[in-house]
């Protein structure tokens, strides 16, 4: 049952990164791919009806984590106290950046909220990447499974690391590039004209960097945390994951060259699923490794809620998520195709 919930939490987090990832990426690219007011409105139109629903995946993932693995939720959220609170502030800033821009017809007002949207998206992405980096690298757990990390202590990952060291910073940069490409692919698929062209050019220009960073981050991970290869060597079927990542990158490259934006977007979805799936495969059954070898990791076994909760939770949780995915299919179908700037519709 613990393993089932591990998969469900991983599913929620991957869903969040793939879905909210493209609107975060659109936000990062916002200021430089969209230059005129019309183009910026088009960016907001492209993500407007869906960004809020995408963000719900983060909330639902947090709730699922809380319900299934209370100890992990309690330990990691309090241990990452500062970065998590900063993430919450950034989520607020970014949300109003998207939604308040349209309300006043004034250039200064619009620029202000464009800036909030873009800077908020950029910093959030770096923080999310660094968070994943922290989980992979491990944190200084004490015997009662708690820890507290300052923002930065020194830049070398050791037994008592901070939230930001060179490894987690690298993870943040990988996330930044990956989601920018992802968002640019989405915008290219959803828009027209200069905006479409610049978005595609952004994705093309960043592709080589993404490919290099992917390799560098894998090597760095082996260096920082050698035991992570254990699941791969014991169950070599896992090596299909890096193959899938490489294949996604290759398909993305070919699609970008031929200008097939939809396929490029789907391949960046595949890339993100592969990267996160690879990390989850390596971690299992750990949830939060300990950077200090004396004390054990937080695993699915010592963090799980009681068996009644887990057993019955699967039933209603699955029903709820199937319905929720149904809404998503409906909404995305409703707003499929390129966006236009017709007047007479709501905002942006």
């Amino acid at each position, binding site marked *: 049952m613990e393993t089932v919930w591990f998969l469900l939490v991983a599913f929620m987090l991957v869903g969040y990164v793939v879905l909210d990832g493209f609107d975060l990426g659109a936000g990062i690219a916002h200021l430089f791919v969209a230059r005129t007011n019309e183009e910026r409105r088009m960016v907001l139109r492209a993500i407007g009806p869906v960004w*809020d629903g995408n963000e719900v995946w983060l909330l639902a993932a*947090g709730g*699922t984590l809380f319900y299934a693995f209370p100890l992990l939720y309690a330990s990691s959220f309090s241990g990452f106290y*500062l970065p998590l609170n900063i993430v919450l502030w950034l989520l*607020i800033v970014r949300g109003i950046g998207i939604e*308040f821009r349209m309300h006043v017809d004034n250039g200064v007002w619009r620029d202000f909220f464009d800036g909030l949207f873009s800077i908020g998206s950029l910093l959030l992405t770096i923080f999310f990447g660094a968070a994943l980096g922290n989980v992979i690298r491990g944190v200084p757990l004490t015997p009662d499974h708690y820890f507290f990390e300052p923002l930065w202590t020194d830049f070398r990952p050791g037994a008592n690391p901070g939230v930001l060291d060179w490894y987690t910073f690298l993870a943040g940069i990988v996330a930044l590039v990956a989601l920018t490409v992802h968002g640019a692919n989405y915008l290219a698929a959803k828009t027209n004209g200069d905006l479409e062209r610049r978005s595609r050019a952004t994705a093309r220009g960043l592709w080589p960097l993404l490919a290099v960073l992917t390799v560098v981050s894998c090597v760095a991970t082996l260096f920082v945390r050698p035991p992570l290869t254990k699941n791969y060597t014991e169950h070599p079927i896992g090596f299909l994951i890096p193959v899938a990542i490489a294949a996604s990158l290759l398909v993305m490259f070919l699609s970008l060259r031929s200008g097939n934006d939809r396929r490029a977007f789907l391949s960046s979805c595949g890339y993100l699923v592969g990267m996160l799936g690879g990390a989850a495969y390596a971690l299992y059954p750990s949830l939060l490794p300990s950077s200090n070898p004396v004390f054990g990791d937080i695993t699915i076994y010592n963090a799980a809620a009681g068996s009644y909760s887990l057993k019955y939770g699967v039933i209603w949780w699955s029903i709820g998520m199937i319905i929720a995915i149904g809404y998503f299919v409906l909404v995305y179908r409703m707003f499929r195709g390129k966006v236009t700037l017709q007047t007479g*519709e709501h905002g942006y």
Partner: protein
Amino acid sequence: MGLAPLIVVLKTIALRNGNQTYNNAARFWMKIFGINFVLGVVTGIPMEFQFGTNWARFSQMTGGVIGQGLVMEGVFSFFLESAFLGLFLFGEKRLSQLAHWWSGFMVFVGSWLSGFFIIVTDAWMQHPVAFTRLPDGSYQVSSFLGLLLNPWALIQYAHNMSGAVITGSFVMAAIGAFYLLNERSQEYGRIFLRVGVIAGFIFSALQIFPTGDLHGRYMAKHQPITTAAMEGLFRTEQGAPIVLLGQPDVEHQRIDNPIAVNKVLSFLIYGTTEAQVQGLNAFPKEDWPTNIPLLFFSYHIMAGLGTIFIAVMTLGVLFLWRNRLFTTRWLLWVIMLCLPFPYIANTAGWLTAEVGRQPWLVYGLMRTTVGFSSNVSAGNGMFTLLGFMGLYALLAIFFLFLVHREIEHGPGTQPNVEAQPITLAGD
């Protein structure tokens, strides 16, 4: 949450009569709902995470129970709400009239479901049911339905949602009164007043009876210490009086300058004027709520304002029935000036519930002093508290500015704000 059903009412009338005015009225409130929703989303997200950041020990011990309400809220209501809000706000031109009505209705259902799951969570902290303790001391659900059907949750939910509709209807009526007094957008002003006053009357009545009455009695049964502190009853009494006004002096255990009505408290709780009501002296001091004056005043502000609401709305309905509401300027003034009070009453009500639960985090099971994140230093706590205060102050300014703008702009104009210059005259 309170505005959503009122928008559904407006959309329903528009759908049945094919009346464009009601559609415009609904669209006007949709815009205000949209601004509220954004702020609700961005300030609501932190709460889901603050259980973990600031109340780690509590989360670790109770996650198997508390987590259920929170994850059900995400899975069953936030997805629903966000998906249909997107359709509702952006899809008016793409959807049929009926489908648009339906998406508005689903937003209403989503927001009310979300309220339910949060209340279930809070109700478990007030009145823990349907749980077992595991060997490591943590709690887990023992009955899925038992948790959802906690009697405390059902009563608290009814009381809370009724409070939300009161807020929505007072705001709607107040804006209507503002338009009539201002002699602009009068057609809409009358619609807002009619819907606001009727809904406000119904729910102000429901707020006191049966929901408030049931809540009070249930509380007296299960949290008698809280009831005693709320009412300022320091000593156990036969035929206990109800204190309408006064200042609790905890040190000398008495109410200063009391205005009290004899025997009413006994009657309200037990239905007979002679019943004995336990005072604070019947309980050990370490179980008393930690801030008795705050609790006393929160409760009295809530109950006092609730009484005023029913008076104002009864007058409103009477004058509406006699066809004089729209021309009675003094009453329009009263309705308009009531706008902030439901917000205050709701806040005071929540303070009553949460301050009243102290010193417990989970009533009778876990003290507040053991639930916090002991690995987070006070300096870090202060840092983030100040950050949130600053950010929320900014949000409040934006909120007031944007809602004010919509009200100035008025209903019935083109929905595309961007194309419209700021106008002061709506008609």
